[in-house]
């Protein structure tokens, strides 16, 4: 009886304990399977918004080009001398991609319908729509989602292109990546000095009195507040503040950085304080006994020895900033941008995912690709923090 009960309990324990692993691996598998194919250098370096041209041919095209060697999914337009291929753009829409343009193809000297300037297309451009007319003067058209085969054959029945929409790039995360880096940098510039100095006060100067305990308690309370509340705070304090000082309108990276600073201060203070506590009292005594002032002691002996702790604080902060979404949705906004300015709206990588997922068609592939980047950074930071704390512990034993 006892044995069956024990066995049952053990089975339950084993079963339940495996949940953690199952969850971690399902998330990892999901993200890598969906995101890995989209994750590319192109994704990281290209703009979110594609550059689009509306084009037409200069006149009637009567020429016939010779077909180059084609792969199975490529189609050649003899009239215009271009090779077309089915493709999807970075946003996930079906388009037709140009993979080859013959030497004197009319595609090298198209005319921009709005500016009348000559535009020369290159391989890699996507065509989403093409309107043409044929000898008789009938208008015919082909769409990107109709496929490359259809588009190539339709094009060969025409001799004038009257309206073609071609675009390049788009769907990339360069802007969000830069804005994330800006946000990290700015937040650390604001919060790190304040946090470290407060930690120094609490550990080196503060008398052990009730008053200081209350101050500590108040700082700890900040750590328990959910991040969305910080978003609200950013929205009512920092957004107006930035609007009045650096000429932003609405959310900006600057207001986001101020908001993130509030979120991070308790962590920075706590981590730095832990590092200060480990520094042997003998260093302080020796320095003071040599006639150094307290300020000198802190500058020359305490701070250099607290560097591993401060580094840990920096790494934890970076992880938190990269992962943060709720607070930034309020304090910065959800508008994805390509040109990043500190006093303008933009999105961090995490909020980029939020924006991609909250539209009509959630873009899971790009979201997962961004998630891979975020997870890699966060996990790496995790490992480094662990290594540092291991090293610190060893020092303490000495």
């Amino acid at each position, binding site marked *: 009886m*006892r044995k069956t009960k*024990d066995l049952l*309990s*053990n089975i339950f*324990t*084993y079963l*339940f*304990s495996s*949940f*953690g*692993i199952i*969850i*971690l691996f399902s*998330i990892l598998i*999901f*993200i890598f399977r969906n995101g890995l194919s989209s994750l590319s250098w192109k994704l990281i370096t290209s703009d979110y918004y594609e550059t689009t041209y509306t084009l037409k041919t200069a006149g009637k095209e009567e020429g016939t080009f010779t077909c180059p060697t084609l792969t199975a999914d490529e189609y050649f337009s003899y009239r215009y001398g271009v090779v077309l291929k089915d493709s999807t753009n970075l946003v996930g829409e079906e388009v037709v991609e140009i993979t080859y343009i013959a030497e004197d193809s009319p595609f090298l000297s198209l005319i921009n319908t709005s500016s009348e300037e000559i535009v020369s297309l290159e391989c890699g451009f996507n065509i989403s729509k093409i309107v043409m007319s044929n000898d008789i003067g009938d208008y015919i058209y082909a769409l990107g989602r109709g496929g490359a085969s259809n588009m190539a054959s339709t094009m060969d029945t025409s001799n004038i292109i009257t309206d073609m929409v071609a675009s390049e790039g788009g769907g990339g995360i360069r802007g969000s990546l830069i804005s994330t880096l800006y946000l990290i940098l700015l937040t650390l510039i604001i919060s790190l000095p*304040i946090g470290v*100095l*407060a930690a120094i*006060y609490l550990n080196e*100067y503060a008398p052990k009195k009730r008053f200081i305990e209350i*101050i500590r308690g*108040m*700082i700890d*309370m*900040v750590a*328990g*507040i*959910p*991040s*969305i*509340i910080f978003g*609200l*705070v950013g929205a*009512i304090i920092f957004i107006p503040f930035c609007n009045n000082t650096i000429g932003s309108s*609405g959310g900006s990276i600057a207001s986001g950085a101020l908001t993130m600073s*509030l979120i991070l*201060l308790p962590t920075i203070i706590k981590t730095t304080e832990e590092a200060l506590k480990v520094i042997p009292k003998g260093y302080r005594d020796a320095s003071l006994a040599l006639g150094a*002032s307290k300020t000198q002691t*802190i500058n020359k002996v305490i701070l250099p020895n607290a560097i591993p702790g401060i580094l840990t604080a920096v790494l934890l902060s970076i*992880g938190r900033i*990269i*992962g*943060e*979404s*709720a607070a930034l*949705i*309020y304090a910065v906004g*959800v508008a994805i941008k390509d040109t990043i300015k500190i006093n303008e709206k933009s999105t961090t990588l*995490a909020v980029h*995912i*939020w924006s991609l997922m909250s539209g009509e068609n*959630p873009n*899971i592939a790009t*979201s997962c690709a961004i*998630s891979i980047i975020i*997870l890699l950074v*966060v*996990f790496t930071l*995790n490992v480094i923090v662990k290594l540092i704390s291991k090293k610190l512990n060893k020092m303490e034993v000495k």
Partner: protein
Amino acid sequence: MEQLLSGAKLATNSAIKRKTTLDKAVHGVLFVITLLCASIIVFIVLFIVIKGSSPFLKNYSIGGNLYKVNLWTFLVGSEWYVYPAKYGVGFIIVDTFYVVFLSLLIAVPISVLTALFISRIAPKVIGKALSYVIELLASIPSIIYGLFGRAKITEGVKWVSSLFGYQSAGGISAMSTVIVLAIMILPTITLLSLTAINAVRDDIIKGSLALGASPTQTNFKLVLRGAKSGIFSGIILGVGRALGEATAVSMVAGNSGSGPSFNLFDTTRTLTSTMLLGLNETSGLDYDIRFSVGIILILMILLTNLLLTLLKRSIGK
């Protein structure tokens, strides 16, 4: 005497005075900075209360009519619509607690047993690996849990609901919210329980084994009992995280317009999803009322923390 003073030659009176003044100035500056850090909490509460109370005090012009929210209908209301403006947070509070409670029901047993497994049952290597897995889970940002929930968990819930012949909103439902929340608070509760279980004294365990109890009996009857205060702290932290979690919840909750609804396959609405979703304007009633919800959220977190801490004390006795 002149020769003796050579030791302090460099430490002239003026230099020392300068240093002492600098010391005092540094001390003062550091103190002010620390006070500033401590006052953050005051500012947060103050500003949110001021902004969040304005919907009940001020008239807003909506479609030409002046509109003011009644505090009582706000608190007990069962509908939340922008047009026509109907703001009742009552059902949202109920829905939030319902969802959080269910997620605890899932997460607590898993977390506690996982912690027990890591600490007392698993071979050292496996225990260490598993605790590392839990730490990684704890470090995953909520947007990624949200993404996973939105893409995969809703899919699963949709399938399950179709088995019951129920047409759910693409799986966006209370059930998905519960699962996402349970996954998210699992690492928190596990890590705190683990610390508590590790802290149970070894001699007590040996004593139990020496009395003829089986290891399993010892684990369940003695170790868990000894660690219950720490486990409870983990639960308190988990509840705090669940109540305050915004991004992931918003991606799977669906923001139903009225309630409360206890149907797991129905969409739901939590305090945080109300604050986050449909954020377009940055002025006007629909914006300001989110701050009122913020006040409610802070109060809820404080209140549950207080209640749970009291409960923990009475259990601990």
